[in-house]
């Protein structure tokens, strides 16, 4: 996506003028300015910000408890929903839908408030959105930098490991990992590591293993990207200069190379976040993700999809929430790409 406010080509004089104006501000500052000039990226940032607020203050915002079942209210819907979906006829008009305006978006098939569950569900999706990149950065960047900087045998070994991991069909591998974690920690002896992990997983509503599963598959792409980037800057003058002045290897890697390759890494990782979010949603959709009653948009869509013909609202609202957050991260990623690498603007 290109920014709608930007003119496609600039004359040399205009570029010089821009450079003049830019002097005295850091690279990151000017990137930030470019980013907030991009309307779509700002929309993405705002959506993400609102979601973060919603996740943090879920107990304060949610009108009800997310796990509370009121079976007499099951599948009820407010009046406005039935006007949008005319085939959801209210009972008083001879239909099957119980009208209850206390639920802003309706209640699910166990009589739980959809709105409250969507608000709490933001916690899972956002945590995945930050945990995926965390693993990718911790493992992927370390592996990639080591491979790219030291080269030779180490490079060969690390990249062959990445190649092998790439041969795994990702989703199948995650399913296998999830089953492994869930079942091997289901009934162990207290006091063992397996018990501690399983306990932590159950207490986090099944989030822990989802994070580990996604994290273990998220770092390979990053490792390849970082390696390529390191290779391209390793022999540049400023690195040689640093080496000549006697900088230590960790110092060269962390304060000379890393800042210079950070841009592409941030862009790539932001654009991968929607993938992590959809993995979680998918895992919860097939029942291997977070465990009931913890709400996840994926499991809500799965529940709703089962009765989509009768109560489309139960799948629609969590789907909208999921769509919006993925949309927001995609916009932000595109905006970041334009902002951090102006040469690439409009070229994808």
């Amino acid at each position, binding site marked *: 996506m290109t920014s709608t406010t930007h003119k496609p080509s600039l004359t040399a004089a205009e570029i010089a003028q821009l450079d003049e104006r830019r002097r005295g501000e850091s690279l990151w500052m000017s990137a930030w300015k470019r980013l907030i000039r991009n309307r779509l990226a700002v929309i993405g940032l705002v959506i993400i910000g609102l979601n973060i607020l919603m996740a943090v203050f879920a107990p304060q915002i949610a009108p009800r408890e997310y796990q509370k079942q009121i079976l007499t209210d099951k599948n009820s819907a407010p009046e406005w929903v039935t006007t949008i979906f005319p*085939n959801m006829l209210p009972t008083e008009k001879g239909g099957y839908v119980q009208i209850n305006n206390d639920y802003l978006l309706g209640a699910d098939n166990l009589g739980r408030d959809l709105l409250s569950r969507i608000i709490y569900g933001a916690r899972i999706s956002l945590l995945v959105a930050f945990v995926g990149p965390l693993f990718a950065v911790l493992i992927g960047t370390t592996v990639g930098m080591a491979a790219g900087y030291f080269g030779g045998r180490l490079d060969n070994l690390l990249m062959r490991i990445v190649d092998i991991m790439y041969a795994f069909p990702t989703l199948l591998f995650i399913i296998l990992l999830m089953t492994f974690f869930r079942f091997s920690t289901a009934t162990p002896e207290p006091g063992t590591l397996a018990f501690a992990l399983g306990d932590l997983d159950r207490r986090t509503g099944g989030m822990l293993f989802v994070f580990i599963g996604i994290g273990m598959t998220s770092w390979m792409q990053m490792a390849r990207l970082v390696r390529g980037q390191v290779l391209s800057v390793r022999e540049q003058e400023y690195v040689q200069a640093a080496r000549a002045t006697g900088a230590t290897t960790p110092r060269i890697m962390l304060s000379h190379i890393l800042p210079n390759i950070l841009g592409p890494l941030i862009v790539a990782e932001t654009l991968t976040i929607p993938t992590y979010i959809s993995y979680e949603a998918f895992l919860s959709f097939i029942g291997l993700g977070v465990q009931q009653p913890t709400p996840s948009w994926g499991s809500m869509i799965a529940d709703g999809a089962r009765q989509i013909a009768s109560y489309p609202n139960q*799948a629609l609202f969590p789907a909208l929430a999921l769509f919006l957050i993925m949309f927001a991260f995609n916009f932000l990623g595109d905006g970041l790409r334009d902002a951090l690498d102006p040469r690439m603007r409009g070229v994808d």
Partner: protein
Amino acid sequence: MFRFIVRRMLWMFLVLFVVSAITFVLLRAVPGGPFNSERGVPAPVQRSLEAKFNLDKPLIEQYLKYVGDILIPRLTGPDFKRSLTEDYLINVPVPILGEGAAFRWMNFGPSLRVRSRTVNQLFLENLPVSIQLGSAALAVALAIGVPLGIIAALRRNTAADYASMGVAIIGVSIPIIIMAPFLQYLFGVQWRLLPVSGWGTIQHLIMPAFALGFAQSALMARLTRASLLQVLGEDYIRTARAKGLSERTVILLHALKNALIPVVTVIGPLFAALVTGTFVTETIFAVPGMGRYFVTSVTNRDFTVVMGTILLYAVFLVLANMLVDILYAWLDPRIRFA
């Protein structure tokens, strides 16, 4: 070229070996087996079943036998009879060695849970379905993505460009688990245009193929656009225009031909990704493909089916990547086989 392919094939064997070892360890580390007593099997029956399928042997022996059955090819005479324990995926007749002689390879063993079926039989029944679905999705991705990308690049920074790229960004933002139920609701329930789920006719294929292919079409559109924009800035395009060729000739013959190279090269991995990634779609649309068995096989500890599926898909992925490398070198002679 030949040496390159041989080297990559050897590398593929190593990859498959490691993949199978990791899968085996993960699967066997999970407590419970396919015939455990909580599944209602009496202990003596469980023991004899485990003996029948070699599950009572030491793990390392089981692993070596399993991998050996798959990797080691066999030459068989006319007396070969297909059985639960001997069923090969690849059977090449060798008439020179006599009637019925054949070169056989890849015995994935019997399924532990689907009674009297071998994993190969399950593959033969279900893999074609997944491949059909994957091919149809690939067609959807190309048919939507490439034209969108071309339009966006040729009308750069116009409303058409923004609209195409807007569609693309919406496409990548809708996961299949959203797309599929709503396609079912709109086309199946509301408008009654297409069957909600199932398999067998062209109508059954449309929705799952679209659900699977749409997100990829967005990626194809971006790739096509980026590639075409880059090509349009090349000197040889200016030369073609300077020669006085019509704009249509310049675009169709000079620009598109080169711009589509990256698009062609991603088709291989994309196809592999689509075929191996069908099972969300298959679950939702009740398509009888490979995906149907995978999740239940994992929970049922159907070791051979899980291992077989992962290995077969790994072969797909590795071959697809190898194909890209070869294709690249062939399309761009500057790249050497390193």
